[in-house]
């Protein structure tokens, strides 16, 4: 166990935690992250092998559409610690890291939930035309996410494989809380939608809201189309909007008497 290793590991984990959603969004992938962690732990070769293997495992398990797969950052960090420090073989290390990866997923859910509270602060900064306030909100958020991940990496480094059992226990006992949090997280976007509706929804537009709701339901339930749902719905929406534009534009012309001489 070395202090330098712990510090470096905490720093790269901090960066990868942010990178998984911002920055390059590529450096955190096991393929790149594992060799870098291997460099820190003094075994690059294992880093390359785990990185390549883990990356191939992740094909088909991509972070698309807001779904949170087991967290690749903590998965990579912990798999490397187990393989290099606990001398586990590659596959065993990749298997054993999954409980940490699941925990990483919890941390992400937790951060995304509490960050909703910071939006009020961002709104205030916006109303005061204060760009620094916006920078702060983003920094605070990165700091929270990075720090939580770095702490778990340190726990994994110090506690080693002995941490797996207590974590498993904790994740079982707290499952109702994490379950509730992720349900709430899934529902918070409705507040965002409600704010949008407050701005856009004039009384003559309720039908369009329901029509859009139905269009996405129908297209989303056709397997061949579901991944392009919103694009397809937007195409329909454009047609409706163009028609609306034409009709209201015509009304304007009629009001101005633009047609009277021609007809």
């Amino acid at each position: 166990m070395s202090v330098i290793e712990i510090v470096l590991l905490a720093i790269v984990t901090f960066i990868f935690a942010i990178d998984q959603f911002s920055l390059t969004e590529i450096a955190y992938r096991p393929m790149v992250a594992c060799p870098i962690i291997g460099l820190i732990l003094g075994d690059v070769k294992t880093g390359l092998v785990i990185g390549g293997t883990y990356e191939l495992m992740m094909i088909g398990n991509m972070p698309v559409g807001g779904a949170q797969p087991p967290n690749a950052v903590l998965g990579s960090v912990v798999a490397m610690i187990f393989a290099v420090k606990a001398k586990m073989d590659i596959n065993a290390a990749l298997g054993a890291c999954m409980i940490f990866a699941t925990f990483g997923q919890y941390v992400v859910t937790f951060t995304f939930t509490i960050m909703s509270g910071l939006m009020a602060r961002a709104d205030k900064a916006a109303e005061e035309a204060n760009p620094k306030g916006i920078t702060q909100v983003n920094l605070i958020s990165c700091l929270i996410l990075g720090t939580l991940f770095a702490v778990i990496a340190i726990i994994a480094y110090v506690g080693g494989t002995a941490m797996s059992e207590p974590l498993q226990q904790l994740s079982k006992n707290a499952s109702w809380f994490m379950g509730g949090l992720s349900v709430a997280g899934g529902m918070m976007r409705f507040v965002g939608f409600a704010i949008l509706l407050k701005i856009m929804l004039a009384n003559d537009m309720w039908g369009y809201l329901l029509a859009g709701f139905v269009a996405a339901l129908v297209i989303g339930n056709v397997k061949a189309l579901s991944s392009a749902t919103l694009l397809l719905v937007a195409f329909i929406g454009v047609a409706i909007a163009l028609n609306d534009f034409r009709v209201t534009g015509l009304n304007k012309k009629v009001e101005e008497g633009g047609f009277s001489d021609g007809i």
Partner: protein
Amino acid sequence: MESNKELKYVDTNPAPRVSKSTLTKMIWRSTMLQASFNYERMQSGGWLWAMLPGLEEIHTNKEDLATSMTHNMDFINTHPFLVTFVMGIVLSMEQLKTDVQTIRTVRISVAAPLGGIGDALFWYTLVPITAGLTANMAIKGSFLGPVLYFVILFVAEMALRYGLMYWAYNLGMKAVSMITEYAQEFTHAASVLGVFVVGALISNYGAGTKLGISIPNGKAPIVIQNYLDMILPCILPLGLTLWMFYLIKKKGWTPVKCIGLILVIGIVGAIFGIWAGSYTPLVPVPWKVVA
């Protein structure tokens, strides 16, 4: 977000074209789109931060900057690598001082559909192919694997960000100046599209909100959600959105208060095993919780 008052720009004279260095700054800032990602507003904090260099150059008086920043805090979710396309369009509208309402509706209507395109392009196509090409190099112990992997993907990502920003900005300038004659009608049409897209978002993003109660009944357990789906699929996402809309618009609730309410609903529901998910309820209940 206490703005029941209609947001309008005081200075409606078009601003000069945003400088190249500002556009470059915005492109690099766009990498932090998800810096303050959260479930309520998703990418809005990072979005505003990325837009700020342009907005500060365009809106030289403080009041208009405040107006612009306020409406740029709206809910937004788009693909992180394609976001500069939306940024370019919105920037051109800001520069020509287009009606705030129009900017808001165009922004959400352009942003939302890009998510699916970006995922298909990047996560389903480019990343798996690149990984397939380079993973075996890494497994055989070559540094070339990760280096190639990073370079290919990062160059593709940044090229997209650059190209889309300029393309969209110029496109927007052309389109926006064309529609000024029918500004009011265009705003109405854009709002129609915006509301239509939000309706789609409710069922597309909201489908995860389900009941998880499954009452044991021999071989055919009674799953309550199935009955709800028979009445109206996605009835919970629709109902919750309209409820939040009612609380915010009619009762004057702040978004933070709504979030608090939702947190309570989520966690209390999980204590009694009402919501769908893979968890064990705190209180023993006579039904099973299914995802």
